[in-house]
């Protein structure tokens, strides 16, 4: 199979208006991916599927990723010349910047005909609140149907062009997206027999502090 760089260059040659970026994975798996422009994603996907050298005809997996807003501190070392004429001092300058959050859909593609893969695609939303629409790739790969529904259910990415975009795991009346980092689960921690850690913190609110003199009598479960 071609390298990801070659695929990217071919895509850029084929779709000059599209943005295709290579996102490298610094881990040992080194599974690099292609970040696609959401607008061109269906066309690019169809090209990847039908191109005779690639033939990525099998979408094995669709995942969602939630990237919350992140504060990044950049440290820049600067040498400041001493006005008294001594040696220059090295001063660290720290600047804070907020990296805006976004949601991501990740597609893993393989080729059944040519026996190669995976090629990883990423699509990113504008933000995590109101620009959460991505084009659905279900018309390209039918296998993405249920998994895009799952990403919609748990992350809240709206896939436009999906044939049947409904919740798949939670019930229809459910409002939240439980896999998001800022999801707050319902507080039913009223009875935790052996609470510890975070659970203890949440359960504490339900347990009254003991009266000063009373000796606690634990109840048995009927």
């Amino acid at each position, binding site marked *: 199979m071609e390298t990801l760089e070659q695929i990217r260059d071919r895509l850029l040659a084929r779709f000059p208006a599209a943005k295709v970026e290579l996102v490298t994975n610094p881990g040992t798996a080194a599974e690099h991916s292609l970040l696609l422009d959401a607008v061109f994603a269906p066309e690019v996907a169809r090209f990847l599927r039908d191109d005779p050298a690639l033939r990525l005809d099998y979408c094995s997996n669709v995942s969602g990723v939630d990237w919350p807003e992140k504060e990044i501190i950049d440290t820049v070392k600067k040498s400041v010349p001493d006005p008294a004429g001594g040696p220059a001092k090295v001063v660290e300058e720290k600047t804070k910047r907020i990296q805006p959050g976004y949601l991501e859909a990740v597609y893993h593609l393989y080729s059944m005909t040519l026996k190669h893969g995976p090629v990883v695609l990423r699509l990113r939303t504008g933000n995590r609140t109101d620009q959460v629409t991505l084009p659905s790739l279900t018309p390209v790969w039918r296998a993405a149907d249920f998994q895009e529904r799952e990403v919609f259910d748990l992350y809240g990415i709206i896939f436009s062009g999906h044939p049947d975009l409904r919740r798949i*795991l939670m*019930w229809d*009346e*459910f409002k939240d997206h439980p896999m998001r980092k800022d999801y707050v*689960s*319902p507080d039913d921690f009223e009875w935790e027999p052996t609470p510890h850690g975070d659970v203890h913190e949440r359960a504490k609110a339900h347990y009254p502090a*003991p009266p000063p003199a009373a000796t606690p009598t634990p109840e048995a*479960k*009927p």
Partner: protein
Amino acid sequence: MNDTPTPAGYTPFPAAGNISDQEREDLRRHGILLTSLEELYGWGRSNSIWPLQFGLACCAIEMIAAATARFDIARFGAEIFRPSPRQADLMIVSGTVTKKMAPQVVRLWNQMPEPKYCIAMGACAISGGPFKQGYNVLKGIDRFIPVDIYIPGCPPRPEALLHGLTQLQEKIRAERVSGPQAARHLQPDAASEFPVPDYGAHDLQPPSNPKLFTAHVLPRKA
């Protein structure tokens, strides 16, 4: 497991009539069987418990194994798994009850005719088990329906299910036809149907049935 309180002076099963257990055993040894209608009724009911044929998770596999030749639940008269709640006496809640599934379980319980019994099989059905701190699993089916027997285990082995079943048989045989010890289904004011929870925006509404479930008050260390 049988939590019905025993009043003073009350002799539990198998005393029936005016003769002592010892005298009756002597008569039995001589080939004379004495019984009461109440005892016969309990004996008959306890030896033909028809469970509802439904499983929720991996515990259901153990329940199926309990019905196979190796463990053979037929030895205890409970081999006829009915595919309709209208024909079942026993609901074995075998496995994880998700919040999405809970209303259906309660509805099945309401559709079962009296006398009916419930076994909570496995850690999940008792308390949520390993998913207790999750957002989507009900923390014990006893929040919505009354449970007669709790079988711990993850999952419980078929022997444990058989043990739970024999415990339930003992409980049924100890039930009286009238009086304060009368079986639940013979008490006119005992509830037989329970409200089915609604799907809410964040959780089930209500999250538990307050008439059945009250959270245990655990003393908090100051």
